[in-house]
């Protein structure tokens, strides 16, 4: 029986593992990958203490730091928690590869994944012009016309990534004004090839073998690429309704302790109802959780 099982290997999971190791809790970390969603970022400039780091290097650093604690943290890093069941005073977990385990505490740091538009053509043309990673795929859209959907920071950064390659970029936003940082908005508004379309309701992605157009507000844009950047969905399915979620599907936590509505389950990072989704905040909240878990285990006489 583990004292603590951490589900997720992003900044929150790594931060939690390091603190749990230092507290000598019998800890297991389950993840299918390190570094979280910002692993695809070409340049993170706000990771405190470093002026600039790639998402991949940040992921490697987090992994190495956790591994430096050796046997104090057990790591299953090519697996995924798929089910959590409550037993009398502990939890029973099942992983994707079919392994099972028992743990006194679960700390959920499973983050979130990309939100999809849910319109016709999106699934059929996924990878065939429908794209999710501009740092990866922007060069493939050289001399093409593309649409970026979403006027938040991720959407604006996607426009910046595409700018050296695409012939024409349409930036579509559902609301009446862009949401991303004003500094980036200003940069984009000066780019000749960018056309900003506000109050845009996307309806269908058109195309047979590859994307040939995007339908919105009953009009069609003749694009060959559609980059979708409309936010995220928290990864909570594996909890199967054990804890209370808010209307966005995020785990509701007590922000002093990171405890969820069910005793024994804590959550931190983007999967929680934290107001700001930031790497630095995820780390801090996860550490808060571990310190609280540690005092809980002591108080209850579990360790």
């Amino acid at each position, binding site marked *: 029986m583990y004292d603590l099982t951490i589900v997720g290997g992003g900044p929150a999971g790594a931060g939690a593992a390091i603190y749990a190791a230092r507290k000598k809790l019998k800890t297991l970390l389950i993840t299918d990958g390190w570094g979280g969603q910002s*692993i*695809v970022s*070409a340049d993170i400039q706000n990771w405190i203490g470093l002026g600039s780091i*790639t*998402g*991949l290097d940040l992921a490697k650093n987090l992994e190495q730091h956790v591994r430096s604690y050796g046997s104090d943290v057990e790591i299953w890093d*090519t697996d995924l928690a798929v089910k959590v069941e409550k037993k009398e005073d502990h939890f029973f977990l099942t992983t994707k590869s079919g392994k099972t385990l028992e743990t006194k505490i679960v700390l959920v740091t499973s983050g979130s994944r990309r939100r999809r538009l849910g319109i016709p053509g999106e699934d059929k043309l996924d*990878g*065939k*012009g429908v*794209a999710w*990673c501009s*740092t*990866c*795929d*922007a*060069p*493939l*859209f*050289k001399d093409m016309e593309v649409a970026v959907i979403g006027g938040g920071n991720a959407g604006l950064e996607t426009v910046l990534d595409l700018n050296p390659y695409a012939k024409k970029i349409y930036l579509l936003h559902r609301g009446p004004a862009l949401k991303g940082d004003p500094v980036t908005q200003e940069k984009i508004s000066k780019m000749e090839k960018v056309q900003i379309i506000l109050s845009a309701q996307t309806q269908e992605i058109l195309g047979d*073998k*590859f994307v040939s157009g995007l339908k919105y507000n009953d009009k069609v844009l003749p694009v060959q*690429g559609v980059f979708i950047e409309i936010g995220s969905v928290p990864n909570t399915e594996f909890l199967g309704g054990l804890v209370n979620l808010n209307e966005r599907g995020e785990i509701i936590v007590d922000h002093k302790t990171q405890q969820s509505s069910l005793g024994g389950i804590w959550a931190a990072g983007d999967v929680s109802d934290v107001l700001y989704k930031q790497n630095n905040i995820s780390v801090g909240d996860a550490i808060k959780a571990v310190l609280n878990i540690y005092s809980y285990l002591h108080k209850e006489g579990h360790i």
Partner: protein
Amino acid sequence: MAKKIIIYSTPTCVYCKMAKAFFQEKNVAYEEHDVAVNEVARKEMMDKSHQLGVPVIDIDGEIFVGFDRDALSKALNI
């Protein structure tokens, strides 16, 4: 005989880097085409994979889109 591996990549693609690091870690030789600059290779990649996204990995004609450690390990028996 060793299988022939071709990876189609872009310089900024993290999953391409992870795939290459995986091959290096396993001491497996591979041939790399940068489709950001090589248009012939880009066309070849699209013909093989029927899609636009990197990495595309060709192992003796078997096509993998994205980096899936388990699938690659299986294909290479490692």
